[in-house]
């Protein structure tokens, strides 16, 4: 999707919201969020929660992950 130097919109939002602790689940979160936003550039929070329901984070970053996804959703660019 992106590199550390050129992050995708979703990756950049995850950095801005510090939406990772250990980072082990992060790649899956980012792929799921990117797929959601590509299909639905302005999901509601309920839709985002539903899309991410299968991605579990043991560190407990779900609230920040959701904030990152909604940050991208708010500009409607589809996450690229």
């Amino acid at each position, binding site marked *: 999707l992106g590199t*550390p130097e050129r*992050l995708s919109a979703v*990756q950049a939002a*995850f*950095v801005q919201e*510090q939406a*990772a602790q250990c980072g082990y689940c992060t*790649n899956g979160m980012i792929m799921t969020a990117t797929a959601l936003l590509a299909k639905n550039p302005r999901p509601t929070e309920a839709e985002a929660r539903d899309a991410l329901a299968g991605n579990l984070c043991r560190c407990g970053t779900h609230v920040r992950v959701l904030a990152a996804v909604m940050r991208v959703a708010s500009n409607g660019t589809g996450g690229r």
Partner: protein
Amino acid sequence: MNQITLKRRQFLQAGGALVVGFALAPLASAAAQQAARGAFPLRDVTDDAVDSFLAIAPDGQVTLYSGRVDLGTGLRAAYRQIVAEDLDVPYDRINMIDGDTALTPDQGGTGGSTAIVAAGIEVRQAAATARQALLKLASERLLVPVEQLSAADGVVRASNGRSVAYGDLVGGKRFDIKADAKAPVKNAAQYKYVGKSLRRPDLPGKMTGRHTFVHDFKLPNMLHARVIRPSAIGATLADVDESSIANIPSARCRAHPELRDRCCENEWNAGARIACFACPLDRAAAICPAPTTFTPRCARPCRSGTSS
């Protein structure tokens, strides 16, 4: 020395390089071992020495050696903030090394939200002690009393306008002092770095699949292992069908009375073997001793006569 009471730290002090060399001896070439020693020369890692925590290079670059590790909690930012504050060096001029017991002091395990409140205090004491030592060195160098000196951004300045950089005072050399719990620390009103939300260095790598997890480490001839546990509590191993993994290159099986583990030259094959062993595990006759409480969970091959 008693083998059992020999502490890890004493062991490393006695010969950390030898320990590493011994561990790798059957695996790595002599050249690789030599390279490893050259890259990581032995350090003093006594728990209370300033040098165990901090090193200042001639160019003023500071290295912090942390006995606690950043598990994604932001410790690499937080400890650098603490050092920047109480050593009076710019945040960006600090590198942090964690997760290497041959290089770092033993600050105990990382967990329980204690990395700041307990181990962070040790880092702060080391930084504050080093700052006092640098002021004293600067006093001798500039022939100005310590009271007329101030430190900021890695430079000691005297009231008469003269100054000297940390790197010129101690660069590449040891402090050879113990961390002083009474060394004066900044009060909160003076904080420039602590309390600010600074960039976490680990995040861009984690967001782009480039972060190195412990699972990603590779050593020469390293094997990957999987433990296959019995399917019932208290079961013991009766039989292993080695032929079931004969088709996987370099797969080995080591039987243990209560577990089995198998090693493979890559993670993929190690995982693949789990599927292969779905068969032999069922065929292995597990013996369940008096499993009355756990009968519903007992594997089909139980032959103690108590299976459901």
